[in-house]
Structures are given as C-alpha cells and as structure tokens.
C-alpha cells in the first residue's frame, strides 16, 4: 500500500513537472486592456489600521487617475493579515490567477519578506508603504519601499544622541515584534559611536503600566538619556510620567508610537521636551494640504495614506513610460529622478530603499511639533 502510494506520487509529480510549465514570460511594453495591479496588506487583524490607510491612499490616487495611458486601472485587494504565510499565498494568487505584474505590498515586514521570493521568481515588482524591517533592504531586486527602514530611524536617533551632551542611554522596550526589532537596531546603531554608553537595556511585558522598578535601575546606572519604545502612546506616557516622578534627569526619545492624545493625557507636563524620531508628513510638501483633506480620517497614521498615494503615483508614472512590464518598471524606478510626492520626496537607492527623510519632532505645549536638529 505504501509503495503504491509513493509510486503514484512520483508519477503525479512527473506529470506536474512536464505538464505544468507556465508561461512566465514578461508581458510586452504594450499596455493590456485593463491594467491589473495587486495589493497585499493587513486588512484585518492588529495591523489593519495601517493596511487600510495604505489602501485609502492608493484608492484616492486611482479615483483621481482611473487610467494610465487611457487604459483603465483595476486594483485587486488581498488580505495579508500581517502574516507571512497568508501574504505569500495571496501574492501567489495575484500573480498566477490575476496575472498582475505589480503588487502594492506588504504592509507588515513579515508580509513583504514572505512575498519577496515569489515576486523575485516571477519577476513582479512590489512596493511597500509600511514595512520598516532592515531585512527588506536586501530582500531582492524587485522589492521596493517608500517607507524607510527602522535602521535609518535608529541611526538618526543614535547620531543625534551622540552629537549632544547626554550620552548615558537607558533603553526600555515592550515585548512586541515592533519594539524588539527597534531595540536590536538601536543597539546596533549605537555601536558606531564609542562615546555612547548603554547603561540599561530592559524589556517589559505587553501593556505593562508600572515601570518604576526598571526606571529605578536606570537611575542607579546614572542614565541621562532614555529611549522609550512602547507599543502605544499610553504605554509611553506612563514611562515618561513615572520617570519624572522618580526624579530621573533624562532626555527622553522615542519613535512614532509616542504621539497620540493619550500620551499627553497621561504624561502631562512630564512629556514636555520629549523628542520623537519618525517618518512624518511634511505639511509644506506640495499637494499635501489638498490631498489630506480628500483622504478619510487615518485609522493608524496619515503618513501611510500619503505613502500609499505616492506609491500609486510612482507606479503609474513608470507604467506610463515603459509599459506594464515588471523588469522595465524596476529599471525605471532605479533610475528615476526625485519624485515629489505628497508624503515626501522619493528616490530609490540601489537596494530599492527610499530616501524619505526621517523627521524629528519635539513635544511642546502638549503636542509634537516639527523641529530641525
């Protein structure tokens, strides 16, 4: 019985090998009758806010520009669920069944990294407006992003701290993928600066609200700078508030998860002077004011909507110039001059990473405002 089944399996696979040769040749530079683009991102689940925001940006762009070179555009949306396995099969379906040559995605880094081998094998271009893992930099030739790598944020943060007085750093991180990823990169970036000293490196449980023990440790180690990577504004708010209560004399830094009304509700004036490094929309960018009013209220953060919009714009620009041919689109993008989008100025480096600027904001009078170094 066993042998019989093994034999059948081999015959079946041999048939698959011969019979299932797929036409993977890239389409010509002519435009198809309908330009089908794919989207894979977290439409449900914990990261859905970001997936929906990116989608909103893409939707707005194509509602304003429904055709590329007079051919209508159709975006086919698939839910990646912020999960590698789900994103991979979604990408595979879009490529095999819907025959897309271009995918907006993933949202989460895990999605992007799982889609990458499939995209590379099939020569399909992907662009992520949400993945921040440094691993995406080297994920492949056809893999692009207009959202910056966390390592860039970490580098900017480390560079800033190294160029200012307080160099004894305490690092407090929440036990989530996001925060732990950041923790690794900050520690990595700090090694480039011999003058920086990591005096405390503590991780705490999800949704923890009492940091007094950890902060006391930091105080004992004479930390004068504190990096708080909590998953939500309220968590970061508690860290900041309790740091002040314990009398820590620290300059506090954090990433994009600092900002939110709850941060100031909880931290109150302890939040004054906290410095935030993040990918920020620049309100002075041309087109920003007009588009932001057209976009729905952001579920996560408006920057994702803006970057989604820009990704759509850059895709349309490429397709217009070189046709719906993934390899040609890829080559076009590597050579593309600066694209002035509503989320920032975009230019891809040799890895497909964007040169989007990391902004710095400081908490002043109960809100975060842009500041220059």
């Amino acid at each position, binding site marked *: 019985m066993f042998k019989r089944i093994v034999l059948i399996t081999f015959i079946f696979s041999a048939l698959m090998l011969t019979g299932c040769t797929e036409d993977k040749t890239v389409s010509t530079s002519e435009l198809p009758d309908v330009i089908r683009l794919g989207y894979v991102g977290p439409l449900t689940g914990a990261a859905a806010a970001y997936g929906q925001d990116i989608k909103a940006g893409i939707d707005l762009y194509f509602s304003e520009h429904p055709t590329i070179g007079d051919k209508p555009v159709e975006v086919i949306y698939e839910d990646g669920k912020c*999960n590698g396995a789900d994103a991979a099969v979604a990408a595979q379906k879009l490529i095999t069944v819907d025959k897309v040559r271009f995918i907006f995605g993933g949202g989460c880094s895990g999605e992007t*990294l799982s889609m990458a081998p499939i995209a590379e094998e099939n020569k399909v271009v992907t662009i992520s407006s949400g993945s921040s893992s440094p691993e995406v930099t080297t994920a492949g030739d056809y893999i692009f992003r207009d959202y910056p790598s966390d390592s860039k944020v970490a580098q900017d943060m480390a560079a800033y701290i190294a160029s200012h007085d307080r160099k004894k750093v305490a690092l407090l991180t929440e036990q989530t993928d996001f925060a732990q990823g950041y923790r690794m990169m900050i520690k990595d970036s700090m090694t480039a600066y011999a003058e920086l000293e990591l005096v405390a490196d503590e991780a705490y449980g999800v949704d923890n609200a009492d940091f007094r023990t950890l902060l006391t440790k930091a105080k004992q180690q004479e930390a004068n700078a504190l990096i708080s990577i909590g998953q939500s504004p309220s968590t970061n708010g508690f860290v900041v508030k309790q740091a002040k209560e314990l009398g820590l004399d620290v300059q506090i830094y954090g990433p994009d998860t600092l900002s939110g009304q709850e941060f100031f509700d909880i931290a109150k004036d302890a939040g004054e002077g906290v410095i935030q490094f993040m990918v920020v929309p620049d309100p002075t960018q041309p087109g920003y004011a007009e588009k932001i009013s057209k976009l729905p209220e952001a579920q996560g953060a408006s920057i994702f909507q803006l970057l989604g919009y820009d990704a759509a714009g850059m895709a349309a620009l490429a397709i217009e110039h070189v046709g719906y041919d993934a390899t040609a689109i890829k080559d076009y993008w590597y050579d593309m001059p600066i694209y002035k989008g509503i989320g920032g100025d975009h230019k891809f480096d040799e890895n497909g990473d964007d040169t989007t600027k990391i902004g710095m904001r400081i908490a002043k009078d109960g809100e975060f405002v842009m500041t220059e170094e």
Partner: protein
Amino acid sequence: MDYILHLAITMSIWGILTLSLNYVAGFTGIISLSHATFYGIGAYSTAILTVKYGFSFLLSVAIGMFLAAVIAYIVSIPLLKLQEDAFILVSFGFAIIGYHVLLNWQSITNGALGIKGIKAPVIFGFSFSGKPLFLCLVLVALICTYFILHRIVKSPYGTIMKNIRENSIVASVNGHDVTAYKRSVYTVGALFAALAGSLMATFLMFIEPKSFELMISVFILIALILGGMGNLKGSILGAVFIILIPEILRFVGFPNTIIGEMQQITYGLILVLLMILRPQGLLGEYKI
C-alpha cells in the same frame, strides 16, 4: 499552475502538522495548545543551521526533530502531571513562552526581524527548488508521516493510546504505565511537528516568531477538530479545509471596501456552522 501548487504544498505541510496533533490529542486525549512551538523549533533549526552555518537540509531537519523531541520530553515531565484543565492552560503558557524565546533570543533567532534567504532543500546534491519538485518532497514526507502514525495507532499500542484518552485510571488499572505512554506520545507528536516546520521554512524562505505564536496552535487544533479527531484520514481532510476555505472566499467577490472583514466573518461563520452541524468533525471518531 503555481497557485494550485502553492496551495497543495501548504495543505500537505498542514497535513503533517494536523496528523501529529491528532496522534497526541485525537488518539491520546492530550489537548495540547503548544504544538506550534515544536513546529517553530523545526523551522528555526533548519533556518538557522542552513543559513548561518551552512548545514545540509537533511541534517538540519534531523537536528530540528531531535531538538523538538528532547524539549518535548523534558517539558512533558511536569506538564503531564497536570489534570486536563490545568494542562490546557499550562500548555497555553508554554506556547507563549516559546514565542517569547524566539522573539528575544536575538543572537540566535534574529528576533523580530526573522530569518530570510532560507534556500530550497538540496538532498544528495539534488535541488528541490521549484514548486512541483518541492511538492513531491512534501508529499513523500506526508505519506511517510501518515504510514508511520497509522502503523502505530492500528497496533495494540493504539488501543492503549485510546484507552488512556477514554479513561486514564482504567488504563493504569489495565496495566499500562500511563505516564510513560503519554510522554512518548507527546514526544513523537513534537517530532513530526518539527518536520512540518522545517519544510515550511524552506518553502516560504522566510520565518519570523509571529509565524509560530499561540494562534497557530489554535488553528492546528481547529483543523484537527474539523477533520475529525481519532481518524488519521480526517486530519488530511481538516488540513485541506482549513487552507481551502479562505482561498475560496477570495473569489467570492466581496466589495473592496470591506473585503478583508467579510472574508474573516464568513470564514468564522463556516467554522461555527460545521461545529454545530457535525461536532465530531468530518470523519471524527472522538468528541472531546
């Protein structure tokens, strides 16, 4: 076409996973919520050993299975002393611990960033890249798993497993060392879960801790219950269903604005309906 091959491969790997949990939970009554942890151990062993240290695929699988077996054996010593409800809770806890180890042991696992660039398996110089060949490999693994477990459960050993499931006191009075059998079952289950993990790692070429969190353990249990506990063929069916139903929903044509949510709600409804209409699963011989 590639999409169908992708699904077939995924279903086969989940078949191995579901079979291994059936062995533990369906036949022996050990309702483990930490099966994904052993799945993760296999995946990470293969990923780390092949990417970082250049080990061969087969060796990495063997080490992964061995590691999973050792950890399962050690964990089972305190774990199997617990009564049912406590056991479920603690196995739940073990799953969370496992996830956090993968997340935090950054020097080995690369933490949240995951491990990418896992290459297709090369066995005795032959590369299994390309979906048709990989499907071959996975099917062979699935068939071997099925036949090995089938041999065991159809033998007098299987009768003892079921005896333990039905009433462990009667089993011990019947002369069976319940603790020893349970430990062996739990360990063998972990072995095959690790095999599935190694295959998934080389298939997706990228893994992260999130791929092995608690919810995955729950999904394996759902696939098991869906296909039917205590019936090995049911496990294959359960794996097929749990992968296929969401895929079919992709083609239903929900409006774009609510596509994600509608797929999830419909999927949930289907599962609930199946449980109401047929609580023992499609081919089940055992209701919890």
